[in-house]
C-alpha cells in the first residue's frame, strides 16, 4: 500500500457530522466534463443531495498505471465504503486492486464480467430510449435520410445506434441512415462538421450521439435528438427529444452494497428503462416542422410496451456501416 497517505486533510466544507453515511469514491478516467462520466458523477451528487451518501471523487485518471495507483491509494487510506468509476482501458488495473481489497465493493463501468467477491460492473444500456428515438426520427424525416454522429464504434455506442436504426425501421422502412464516427469521445467541432456533412448529404433529422451536432441542426434548422441528458434547452426549437441515462438506480444499488457488503453482479440492468435507468425525454412538439400526433402516440405505446416487458429492444453490438439502407436490416 502507498504509505504516507493519511487523509487527515479535509476539504473544509460541510462534510462533518456525516460519519454514519457510506463514503462512495468516484474514480473517473476522463474529465468530468465528458458526458459518460458526467452522468455517473451527477447521479452520485444527487445521492449526496438526498443525504444518502458521502461522496469524494477524482477524475482524469487517464492511464492504467495511474488508475491502479489511485485506486490502491484510495482503498488503503481513504476508507471508502465503495468505489465507483469507469474501467475502460484499465480493466486489468481495476480488477487487480479490487482483488486486493475484497471487503470494499468496486462498481465500474466495464465491458467485461463481474468478478467475485467484490467487483460489479455496469454500463449505459440505452437501447430502449434509442429505439423510441429512432421511431421519432423515422417518422419525422421527409427526405428519408437520417444522420447519426457517434463517438467511435464501441459496443455501448453500437448498440444505441443499432437500436436507433431498428426504431427507424418500425416507422419508416424506406429510410437511409448515415452514420459517422468522430473517433474521439470529445471533439464537438469535428462532430459538427460530420453533422454538416450529413446535412449536405440530404439528412433532415440528426441524432447527436456526441456534442456538437445540435449546433449543426440549429443552423440547418432541422430536428435533432440529444443524448445523456435532456438537451432541449440547448435548442428549444430543434431538439425533439433526448436519450437520458439515469445512473441513480445503479448508484442506489452500489450504496446498498456499501451498506450490506460487496457483491459481484452485473448492474447493467439498472440502466434499463423499465427500472428507471434510462428514459426518453418528453417529446418537444414545438420543434421545427412539428411532431405528428399519431407518431407521438405510436411512441408512447411502444414505451408502455417496454415498461411492462412486453417488448424487449434487441441488443446488437456490431459496428454499424457508414450508410445503412434500413429496409435491408
Amino acid at each position, binding site marked *: 500500500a502507498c504509505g504516507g497517505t493519511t487523509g487527515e486533510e479535509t476539504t473544509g466544507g460541510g462534510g462533518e457530522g456525516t460519519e454514519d453515511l457510506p463514503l462512495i469514491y468516484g474514480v473517473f478516467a476522463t474529465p*468530468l*466534463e465528458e458526458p459518460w462520466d458526467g452522468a455517473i458523477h451527477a447521479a452520485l451528487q444527487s445521492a449526496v443531495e438526498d443525504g444518502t451518501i458521502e461522496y469524494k471523487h477524482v477524475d482524469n485518471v487517464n492511464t492504467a498505471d495511474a488508475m491502479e495507483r489511485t485506486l490502491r491509494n484510495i482503498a488503503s487510506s481513504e476508507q471508502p465504503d465503495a468505489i465507483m468509476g469507469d474501467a475502460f482501458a484499465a480493466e486489468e488495473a481495476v480488477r487487480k486492486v479490487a482483488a486486493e481489497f475484497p471487503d470494499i465493493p468496486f462498481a465500474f463501468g466495464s465491458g467485461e464480467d463481474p468478478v467475485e467477491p467484490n467487483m460489479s460492473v455496469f454500463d449505459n444500456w440505452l437501447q430502449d430510449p434509442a429505439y423510441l428515438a429512432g421511431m421519432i426520427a423515422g417518422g419525422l424525416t421527409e427526405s428519408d435520410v437520417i444522420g447519426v454522429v457517434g463517438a467511435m464504434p464501441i459496443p455501448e455506442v453500437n448498440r444505441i445506434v443499432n437500436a436507433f436504426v431498428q426504431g427507424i425501421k418500425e416507422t419508416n422502412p424506406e429510410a437511409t441512415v*448515415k452514420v459517422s464516427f468522430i473517433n*474521439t469521445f*470529445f471533439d464537438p*467541432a469535428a462532430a459538427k462538421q460530420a453533422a454538416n456533412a450529413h446535412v449536405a*448529404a440530404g439528412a433532415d433529422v440528426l441524432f447527436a450521439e456526441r456534442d456538437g451536432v445540435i*449546433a449543426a441542426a440549429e443552423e440547418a434548422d432541422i430536428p435533432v435528438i440529444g443524448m445523456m441528458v435532456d438537451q432541449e434547452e440547448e435548442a428549444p426549437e430543434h431538439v425533439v427529444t433526448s436519450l437520458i441515462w439515469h445512473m441513480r438506480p445503479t448508484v442506489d444499488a452500489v450504496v446498498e452494497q456499501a451498506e450490506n457488503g460487496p457483491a459481484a453482479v452485473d448492474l447493467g440492468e439498472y440502466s434499463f428503462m423499465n427500472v428507471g435507468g434510462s428514459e426518453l425525454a418528453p417529446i418537444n412538439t414545438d420543434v421545427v416542422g412539428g411532431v405528428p400526433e399519431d407518431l407521438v402516440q405510436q411512441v408512447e405505446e411502444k414505451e408502455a410496451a417496454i415498461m411492462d416487458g412486453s417488448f424487449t429492444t434487441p441488443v446488437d453490438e456490431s459496428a454499424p456501416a*457508414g450508410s445503412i439502407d434500413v429496409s435491408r436490416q
Partner: protein
Amino acid sequence: MSINLLAALAAMLTVATPLVWAGIGELIVEKTGVLNLGIEGTMYAGAFTGFLVALRTGSPWWGLLAAILTGVVAGLAMAVLSVTLGLNQHVSGLGLTLLLIAGCEFTFRMLYAGGRPKLDDKFDAWLSDVPVLEQHWLTYVAFLVLAPGTWWVLRSTGLGYRIHAVGENFEAAEVAGISVNATRYAALAVGGAFMAIGGAFLTLAVLGSFTLNIINGRGWVCIALVIFAKWRVWPVVLGALIFAVTDALQLQLAITTAFSDVPREVMLALPYVAVITALAVWGRKVHYPGSYLKAYRRA
C-alpha cells in the same frame, strides 16, 4: 458517388478558418525567428475566455475582445520567456501550452463544475452566416482581410521589412536601428491575438459552447503548415485549404455508400497524409529564418 461539392466547399472553409487565423499568427511570430509552440495553448485560451466572457456579458463582441486580449497576454508571456529571458523556445512554448490548457480547464471546472453551459440564442445575428458562401463573417475576414493584409504588410511596409530582417539576421537588424526584442514582442503579441481568434472562432462561431479538448491538435497542424509554407502567407492559406479539403472530403466519403467499408481511420488520416505528400512533392529544402530558435542579447 453523391458528394455534394458546394456543401463540401462550405465545410472546407469553416474547417480552414481557425487554421488560417492561427497559422498566420504563427507565421508572423516565426518570421521574427521565434517558434511559438504556445500556439495550441493560446488557441485554447482564446476559445475559453472568448466563450466565458461572451457567456457572462451576453455579448459575443466582448467575448471576441477578451479572446484577443488573452492572445496578446499569452504572446507577451511567451515573449518574456523566450525573448527577454532567452529560454529555449521549445520548452517555453510547450510549457506555456500546458499551463494555459490546465489553467482554462481548472477555471472551467471551478465555475461550471462539470456542467455544459451554452451561449444564448440572442447571438443569432452574430452567429448567423453571411450569404454567398454561407460562412461566418470571421471566415470572410480570415480569407479576404487577414491573409492579403498580412501578405501586404510583410511585402511592402517598413514593418514587414523589419520583421523579415529580425528573423533573418538580428545583428543586421540591430545595426539598422531596429529593436530586435521590441519587434519580437510585437509579433508575439499580434500573432497571439490571431491564434486566440482562431480558437475563439470554434467556441463563438462554430459551436456556441466550450468543451475540453476543443482545439484538439489544431495548433500543431498550424506549426506544420507554417513550415510547409516556407514562411509565406499564401502557402499557409493553401495548406490550410488542402488540410480542410481532405478533412471535409473525408466526412463526405465516410457516409457515401461506395466508401463506407473503407476503415474510417484511413479517411481521417487523409488530411495529414495530404500535407505530408504535398510537402514531399513541392517542399524541397527548407530555408529556415536565420535567427530561428535563437535568443537575441545585446552586448
